[in-house]
């Protein structure tokens, strides 16, 4: 609380401020600047190659393109870059941010509204940043009876789990954080964590509505996990591999699997909606029934983290759909091999990789839009109809297409040496 003593005098206050400025200037010029010069010019950095650098020389190096390009090229091939930036978290989070903005505008157009308009002058494109700042500045309220360690850990676990999925998705040839042979199983294993986190968080909230929401999340995700996995299984049968990169390659060698497995693609799409808890399957967060479901007690950045996790999950599921059914990164090379005619310097990019990433992003974004679409046209489904859909209809449909996939393999149409394999 701002207060000043009764003996406050303005003249003394100004005087003290002037003294402060005087001493800052003196100390900066007598001590700070000499120290800065010493550090800049005389402290040796760890040797790079056979050069001995000082910070000053390093700074001059950074602004010199002929010396920067190799460093960048080295950097983008490190694992750190892959995990944090391109196929990993930043790429997914950027796409998620674009998704949030796009969703709001798209939904607004559908509903004859305008959507975000003011923040950032142009069509409210900075709205997300404003919302983020608001969430950060808000108080995080922990319910008094809450299980505090789990209450704090669950949102972070939620984001971490969602981000872990993105590590397994191949974005371009060779551009995947973890290229493992059991990629698909790993993806589903990671997805298996979400109901657990929802239930833990709802239990830790020590509140009734979150508890109901958590149970609903558990029911829903278990009911839809099985058709989800079975629909992906037919993809494995056609591709003959669990490795996501191999699945993509086998589609490049034949045709996109969505042409052979339309029913599986449909089941996968519906199950993704259920997995994402999006309308019409947003039962765990059904607003008019159970307030906000399992995230009722969240506030401030805890809510922000869960939203971030949800959108990362949206990206992951859309990307998985693209990898399984829409041929992953396959597409024509559209970027020129040379940046400009006559340029003979170091090659900055690989056109094949860049177009692959481009096509992958375009397809994924299209898929995200398809996943957003039901929010504008559909009401919420009821839990018994949802369970009935999951257990009776989708599983049967997924099995039907699995047998079609088996027939395609044994009929010699796909698979090694098949008719349609190029």
């Amino acid at each position, binding site marked *: 609380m701002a207060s000043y003593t009764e003996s406050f005098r303005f003249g003394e206050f100004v005087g003290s401020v002037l003294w402060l400025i005087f001493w800052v200037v003196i100390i900066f010029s007598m001590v700070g600047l000499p120290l800065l010069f010493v550090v800049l010019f005389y402290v040796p950095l760890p040797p790079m190659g056979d050069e001995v650098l000082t910070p000053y020389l390093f700074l001059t190096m950074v602004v010199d393109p002929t010396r920067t390009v190799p460093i960048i090229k080295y950097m983008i091939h490190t694992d750190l870059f892959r995990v944090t930036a391109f196929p990993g978290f930043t790429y997914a989070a950027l796409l998620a941010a674009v998704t949030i903005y796009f969703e709001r505008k798209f939904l607004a157009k559908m509903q004859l509204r305008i959507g975000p308009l003011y923040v950032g002058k142009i069509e409210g494109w900075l709205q997300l940043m404003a919302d983020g700042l608001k969430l950060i500045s808000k108080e995080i309220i922990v319910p008094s009876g809450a299980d505090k360690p789990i209450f704090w850990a669950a949102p972070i676990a939620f984001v971490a789990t969602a981000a872990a999925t993105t590590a397994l998705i191949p974005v371009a040839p060779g551009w995947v954080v973890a290229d493992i042979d059991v990629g698909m199983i790993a993806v589903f294993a990671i997805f298996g964590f979400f109901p657990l986190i929802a239930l833990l968080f709802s239990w830790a909230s020590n509140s009734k509505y979150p508890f109901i929401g958590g149970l609903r999340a558990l029911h829903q995700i278990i009911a839809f996990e099985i058709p989800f996995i079975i629909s992906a299984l037919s993809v494995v049968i056609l591709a003959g591999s669990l490795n996501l990169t191999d699945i993509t390659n086998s589609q490049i060698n034949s045709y996109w699997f969505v042409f052979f497995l339309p029913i599986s693609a449909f089941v996968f799409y519906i199950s993704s909606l259920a997995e994402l808890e999006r309308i019409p399957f947003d039962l765990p967060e059904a607003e008019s029934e159970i307030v906000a479901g399992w995230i009722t007690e969240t506030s401030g950045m805890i809510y922000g983290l869960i939203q971030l996790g949800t959108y990362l999950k949206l990206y992951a599921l859309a990307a998985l759909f693209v990898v399984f059914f829409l041929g992953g990164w396959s597409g024509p090379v559209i970027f020129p091999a040379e940046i400009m005619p006559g340029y003979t310097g170091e090659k900055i990019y690989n056109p094949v990789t860049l177009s692959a990433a481009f096509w992958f992003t375009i397809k994924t974004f299209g898929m995200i839009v398809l996943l957003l679409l039901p929010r504008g046209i559909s*009401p*919420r*489904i009821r839990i018994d109809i949802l369970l009935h859909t999951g257990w009776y209809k989708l599983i049967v449909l997924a099995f039907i297409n699995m047998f079609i996939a088996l027939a395609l393999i044994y009929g010699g149409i796909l698979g090694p040496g098949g008719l349609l394999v190029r």
Partner: protein
Amino acid sequence: MASLEEKIEETRRLGLQVVKETEEDRLMTLSVGPQHPGSGHFRFTVKVDGDYIVYCDPDPGYVHRGEEKMCEYRNIIQNIPHLERPVIHDSTNVTYSYSLAVEELMGIEVPRRGQFIRAIASELNRQVYTLYWLAIYGIFLGHSTMFMWPAGDRELFIDLLERLTGARVTHAFNIPGGVRNDMPEGFKQKCLEHINYYEKRLKEYEDIFYNNPLFRQRTEGVAPLSKEDAIKLGVTGSVLRASGVPYDIRKVEPYDVYNEIDFKVQYMKTGDSFARSYVPFLDMKESCHIVRRLLDKMPESGEVRTKLQPNPKGPPGESYKRVESGRGALGYHIVSDGTPKPYRVKISVGSFRNMLALPFLLVGQKLADMPAVYWSLNYWPVEADR
């Protein structure tokens, strides 16, 4: 689970007593409202057994404002602006029956053109209210487009009413003796334009909402209210008509010019949530026709208001008049002792009577059906609390 009939019977037999003590520990008590996104200014307690509601106890009164008592301290004209507060979206209908009751008490005859303007304003306001209700029904079922569209199209009628009365929502337009002012120029033309556009929109509502298979699944066969039960519980308005009773005050006790207008009473026979949510929609469609006919038959010119004396007072006596509002019969019982201030004003609102059906309908339903049943009762908490 027992069937719905048994549940209703059991609830009736217990007289809404708390479920048996032995079962108490396996039930979860949920307090829905008044700070619940699916309740409005209204609280009801439900007990759930798993996903099934076994007990429901409505607890109105959160926004009680003592409107009836306030009437006793103001004179007859001063009462109008505060009486429309309980349902600001339906303010013309609320003041309509009050004005009718005062006119009956004082023996005033309203000029013919004034009667037509009243009826037109009341029909337009019915649209405003029902669109708002429909918007909330949409968002209650998670259909956000159905929230935005009616809430946006409501502007059409708010715009018309603003031209007519000068205010967007709380008009205070009906006064004892007629309406406050005549129609502005070009109102008829504008009104027809808006209604023509609006009827096209109603078809789109039907496509996106009422014919949506998911909406049908959620509401068809949910919480049916039989004809006998509906009459026994005394529900009114769209809830009664959805149960197969073609009861509309405009037809049963025609007031002002409604006996000259040819219109159908819309009703359905199933009495489930779908019927209860569809009847107001049919009413809106019919209301468009009514406005057209009213505009056709309206005299071109004439007085719109019988002037009263500055501080009007009626002879000692009492009167009761009711109109068909957006939520059903809305009646005013006014007792006068010969002074300018009414001795007693009793407001009989449709919302409160529809709310009485809530505990019977919710028992045996799933928790997920709670908003679908609750809001289909055409209940406006603020009006019920008065």
